[in-house]
């Protein structure tokens, strides 16, 4: 349904994505001797959105970092499109997985356009001209065509985060990871970024979203996962978790945050 809504935006129009499946099998991660993630198993079907909720320190971010191996898992396996991510070279793996951070992590000495184009020529090996063209299209997709030549410090938080999303999308990832992407934004700008994320999901991107936005999780997620103390406490559809929470821990969590 998403491609049909395409309008006059770019010559190519709005393309649909072909997200890959993602599966975690007994993923265990540790910082030194401390296990921060224990035996987490999770199935994300192609083109679906999974939201991970839970208190701070419950291992949500660590889980994302295990998926693209920014932090190497200690045990278990991650399957991207059915193949073990641990058997792929990390750099190759990461170029197939987009990640968006809480604090944007844009390159401050690059313009928005250069932020998006950098990995296109340096990782994907595109010519610099082609990379800039592709970057321009990517920025247009997130509504920032006009801001291509601005540096991050001249953009609002919402605009910076959309540049970061454009930067990840330009690499044509199979899976997108969002690590509290709206936690550092002005309240007024949160919705714009969440809508953008929801749009990606509708267009077929596989997404793993760590979020404190319960409204977003309820509305957009195909699957919600509740984590606490490094383990998955409960997972299921938004209706399952938000309306009929089974575990006492989740009931307690929801009574505090909703």
């Amino acid at each position, binding site marked *: 349904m998403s491609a049909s*809504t*395409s*309008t006059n*935006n770019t010559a190519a129009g*709005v393309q649909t994505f072909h997200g890959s499946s993602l599966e975690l099998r007994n993923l265990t991660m540790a910082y030194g001797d401390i296990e921060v993630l224990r035996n987490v198993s999770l199935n994300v079907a192609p083109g679906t959105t999974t939201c991970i909720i839970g208190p701070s320190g419950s291992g949500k971010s660590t889980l994302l970092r295990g998926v*693209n191996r*920014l932090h190497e898992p200690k045990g278990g396996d991650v399957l991207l499109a059915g193949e073990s991510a641990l058997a792929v070279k*990390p*750099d*190759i*793996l*990461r*170029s*197939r*997985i*987009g*990640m968006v*951070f809480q*604090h944007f*992590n*844009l*390159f*401050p*000495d690059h313009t928005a356009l250069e932020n998006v184009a*950098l*990995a296109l020529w*340096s*990782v994907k090996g595109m010519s610099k001209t082609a990379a800039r063209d592709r970057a321009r299209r990517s920025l*247009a*997709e*997130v*509504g*920032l*065509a*006009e801001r291509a030549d601005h540096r991050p*410090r*001249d953009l*609002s938080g*919402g*605009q910076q985060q959309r540049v*970061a999303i454009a*930067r*990840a999308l330009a*690499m044509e990832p199979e899976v997108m990871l969002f690590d509290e992407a709206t936690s550092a934004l*002005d309240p*007024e*700008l949160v*919705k*714009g970024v969440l*809508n*953008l994320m*929801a*749009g*990606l999901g*509708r*267009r077929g991107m596989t997404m793993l979203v760590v979020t404190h936005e319960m409204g977003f999780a309820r*509305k*957009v997620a195909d699957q919600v996962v509740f984590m606490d103390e490094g383990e998955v406490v409960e997972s299921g559809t938004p209706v399952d978790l938000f309306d009929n929470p089974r575990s006492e821990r989740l009931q307690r969590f929801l009574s505090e945050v909703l």
Partner: protein
Amino acid sequence: MDWLSTITRTFFDFGAMAEVLPQLIGVGLLNTLIISVSATIIGVALGMVVAVMGISSSAWLRVPARIYTDLFRGLPAILTILLIGQGFARLSQSIFGPSPYPLGIIALSLIASAYIGEIFRAGIQSVDKGQGEACRALGMSYAKSMRLVVVPQGIRRVLPALVNQFIAIVKDSSLVYFLGLLVSERELFRVGQDAAVLSGNLSPLVMAGVFYLVITVPLTHLVNYFDSRFRTGRRRPSAPSSGLKELTELDAASPLITGSNT
């Protein structure tokens, strides 16, 4: 007022100053600049290697960089210059000829690289970790993320410290005279010193000192200027703005964002 005329004759003998001036400019200043600039260029290149080794996760790179830095930062410059200038004189002779001038530059470069390495290391480590992570998350290798993103940001931050280091090198370049330079190779200090022996007073050395100040004082102020500029940033002040502007823009901008399920 006998002591006043003594002071004038000792330090401000303008005749002696005028006499040494052409040599100070044509020989002394030229050589001081050649020595300092070459030592700085080599020092920056070596310093970058030392810095990158110093932040490596491999102890095989980190420990040698640490020892190198401790060694050349910990020894008096004059001792290092003499050890290298005389210790490698024979080797130098077969490569550069009899002049100790190149060895002097190399000794200064090694000392400078230890300091510059520390400056670079501090600069690179002060860059937010998220920068490197964003690069890695995009699929860049460690080397690429350092070269394209992290190191350039680190260098920009330490430019003032690098200028300070250049000033230190200019002053240390006077020590090279210990190695015994040819007449045409003498730097500011040596030219002034030789002329002082001839004139029987210190005025030529005072003149040499003036030349050092002419190089270093403007640089010091340039550093202060840059430092405050980097600190305050270049962001232009802007009038208070409404968040609505961005929201309107957002609504108009993209098919992706509009028509959502909210």
